[in-house]
């Protein structure tokens, strides 16, 4: 199975889930960076 391939039988589109996990990580890193600067 390749990243992002349309899944069979109503399964989620894995590429979108992978992107969601990576986007959440990016948001967390950005959030921490902002938090430190706000309260420095």
């Amino acid at each position, binding site marked *: *199975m*390749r*990243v992002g391939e349309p*899944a069979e039988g109503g*399964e*989620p589109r*894995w590429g979108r*889930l*992978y992107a*969601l*996990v*990576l986007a*959440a*990580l990016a948001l*967390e*890193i950005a959030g*921490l*960076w902002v*938090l*430190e600067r*706000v*309260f*420095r």
Partner: protein
Amino acid sequence: MSTLDWLVLVLTLLGIVAFGTWRSRGVHTTESFLRAGKDIRWWTIGLSVIATQASAITFLSVPGQAYQDGLGFVQFYFGLPIAMVLLSAIALPVYHRLRVYTAYEYLEQRFDRRTRQFTALIFLVSRGLASGLAIYAPALVLSAVLGWPVLWTNWALGAVTIAYTVAGGSRAVSRTQTAQMAVIFVGLLLAFGMAVSLLPSGFSFGQGVALAGALGKLQGVEPSLRLDTRYTLWSGLLGGLFVQLSYFGTDQSQVQRYLAGGPLAESRRGLLMNGLLKVPMQLFILFIGVMVFIVYQLTPPPLFFNRAELELVRASHPAEVAALETTHARLFAEKRQAIDAWLANPGEVSAVRDAEARVQELRKETGELVARARPGADPKDADFIFLRFVLDHFPRGLIGLLVAVILSAAMSANSAALSSLGATTVVDFYRPRHPDASDATTLAVARWATGAWGVVAVSFGTFASLLDNLIQAVNVIGSLFYGPMLGVFLVGFFLVRVGGRAAFWATVAGQIAVLAAARFGTLGFLWYTVLGCAVVVGLAPLLQRIWSPPSPLPTGEST
């Protein structure tokens, strides 16, 4: 601990074990003993994966780490979500297609039996030793703080874990872990709420966060490229990715959690759930440590959080300890004044920072006195900060629950380890030699192997007191063996021309290189994984070329 605490502790632990045993009843075949079951859903897989990684050391050490150094440790986990995506996309479909029980079975299908068994042996040695330490470390801390005898704590904790793991196998491990994670989440939320409620009246949560920020405790991202700083954004993203790929991709204690026997989609969702939740969860545990720090800016903290150790030092050096305590009280009063001035004028932060620096200097001096007075004793008290805070400030009942959280974490991580050690022994060593053994015999061997590994691990933990620093020892053991394991799997997945002979000898060379570097070199142990992996990935194609040079092109096609 009070009677109520004991009641909460015993009932919680018994309830968890009873729940897991009841949910895993009817384990009568090797398949059902080694795999959690076809009906297992993704959230159980996700919780099980998280519970396996979160050992008691996590809950004892991480808040203390945040108390001292702030949120920076969270960067170690930045590579984890990326590793979850890569494993979901690349390794998981291969494991599922081959219908393997252990990760090492893949190596026989891809290379040969000796490569599989050598890698499985590396796993058995490293996980067997590490799980012994992982049982002993919380037993040691709980003994020091609560006065429990360390040997009995170690064996009691080990015996309960061995009992339900041998009885219910992998299914019991997964089911029990969901209950353990529920207790852990509830305990952590209550600990956070309790820390907030301990702020004095007139001092808001927002002011506390601002104070932590002013004292540098909220720095969770360090973008510098310095190699001598242990936790940076880049070491977390790159180094952390290596560590998490090897741990989740090649360590059977994790592979067994997500290869539960159900559909590929459930395993994938479980791993991605871990990728989504792990960083926020670690951040939350670290933030509890920051809250403990804030509380101790406003109420006097102990001079040294390992009280039992300080009392031993006091017995031999009473005047020096008394002098340090007097200075500590004076410095706290000065810092409290500086904080009041900062509250009135938030621009005036330098006096608070100076006062905090003097307190830190005094803590360092106390550690030096401990090291001088009792050679061999641990001069650091970070692992005791959270438990001391709980015991000194939490109400009855809640103390019992928090101790249950720590013991649950110890049991969940170790049950997964024992189950995987038993599975690897049977699947990678017993079955290949006894292919005609009946299912009942194989199941009996699996149960015996799991129990025997439990006894080996707990016995090794008993001797762990000979080691200088337990937590460092756990990390070093992992680093010594993970590199070659990750290397041989990467060769299997990506270097399609490399055959069994080259892969085997490259793995042996990688393991020798790491052990030699550890024995004779000066390389920091965090680099062992990279070194071992690099030797295997670099050497395997080279050996393949020497032993089986690529065949020359047919004459007619040459140009």
